[in-house]
């Protein structure tokens, strides 16, 4: 069981999407959502993790679509809802030598949070903002799914079964030529069904640099941004029936190149998350990569 649980870290890290409707693709921004304005974002996800330090030779594949809807309550306050739909598949070799596959598909846990711009300094063609956000991850996903082998282990379930608070602060500096975002966040995971995921602390940073048009003309030209994002994600060990799982938790550092095509109403974007450093506990399964691609639209 402990071994099966170990890759839960990966599942959590890979899918923790801060689905906010502006520039960074793997976390948040402090840029505004106008009052009475909606922003919808759809992000497709493909994640692979096959670097298994244990004998089970686990291979995890996650396919998903993460939908986010944001609404501007005022120019400074916005609320967001996030709902993932996931297909998780795990292949592993059992102690008897059989190669088996366990999988599940459906709606995963939802997130709801509010973001408030606490500080804003605007100047011609540039802005600096600091925003805080606070919310909950709600147990929308199935947490007692079964297959022919019985109940799926907690990390493979679509939902955690628990209600988990999250919050953080994000800073944005944007000019015509580039944008920098940085975020610190924390999520407290609570116990459900005798299982508790470790709490998650994150530090994220993003640089978006305008590649086209090289010279900014008049009117409202579309922008093409080159993107480089970094995520340092630290998760505590999971607990099973109150006991820490030594094969869970650890720190992962993702470096992620990407691209964005930005128009007045639409953004089309893609990014590849590459784990350049993984310091995981015990036999936790390590990431290979994650690809995210999608669009955002305002209305």
């Amino acid at each position, binding site marked *: 069981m402990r071994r099966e649980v170990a890759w839960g870290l990966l599942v959590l890290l890979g899918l923790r999407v801060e689905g906010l409707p502006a520039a960074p693709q793997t976390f948040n921004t402090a*840029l505004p959502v106008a009052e009475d304005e909606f922003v919808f974002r759809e992000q497709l996800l493909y994640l692979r993790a096959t670097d298994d330090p244990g004998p089970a030779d686990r291979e995890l594949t996650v396919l998903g679509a993460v939908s986010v809807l944001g609404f501007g309550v005022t120019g400074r306050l916005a609320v967001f809802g996030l709902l993932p739909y996931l297909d998780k598949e795990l292949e592993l070799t059992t102690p008897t030598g059989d190669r088996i596959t366990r999988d599940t598909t459906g709606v995963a846990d939802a997130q709801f949070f509010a973001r408030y711009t606490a500080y804003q300094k605007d100047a*011609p063609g540039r802005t600096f903002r600091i925003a805080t956000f606070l919310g909950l991850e709600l147990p929308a996903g199935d947490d007692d799914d079964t297959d022919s082998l019985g109940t799926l282990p907690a990390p493979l379930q679509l939902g955690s079964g628990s209600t988990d608070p999250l919050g953080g602060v994000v800073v944005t500096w944007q000019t*015509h030529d580039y944008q920098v975002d940085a975020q610190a966040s924390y999520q407290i995971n609570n116990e459900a069904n005798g299982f508790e995921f470790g709490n998650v602390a994150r530090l994220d940073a993003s640089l978006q640099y305008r590649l086209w048009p090289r010279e900014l003309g008049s009117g409202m030209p579309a922008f093409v941004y080159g993107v480089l994002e970094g995520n340092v994600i630290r998760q505590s060990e999971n607990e099973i029936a109150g006991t820490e799982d030594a094969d869970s938790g650890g720190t992962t550092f993702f470096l992620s190149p990407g691209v964005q095509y930005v128009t*007045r109403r639409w953004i089309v974007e893609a990014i590849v998350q590459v784990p350049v450093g993984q310091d995981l506990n015990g036999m936790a399964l390590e990431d290979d990569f994650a690809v995210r691609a999608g669009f955002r639209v305002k209305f």
Partner: protein
Amino acid sequence: MTTIERAAAALPAFAAAVLIALAWPAAADEPAVYELQADGLACPFCAYGIEKQLGGIEGVEAVATDVKSGTVTITMEPGATLDEADAERAVDRAGFTMRDFRRRERTE
């Protein structure tokens, strides 16, 4: 002064009055155009909120943004005017800061 001389003296004023009367309807129908600076605006995706907020003000016919200069041009329906306080409120609701609101002269 004879009658003819009096008529000749009044002719320029009469002509001016006729010209004004002819020109007045066209001037009244010409829509008012305003310009404002939206500080903090630096990318196309953010401009949509400003244009939507300003476009929601009664009497606004069209809104166009120049992202490089941060200038937002608001064209009103014929006979309508734009209050500066309404424009500032709209830009604030979009999450930005208004500066330098002015009505564009017809010769511009």
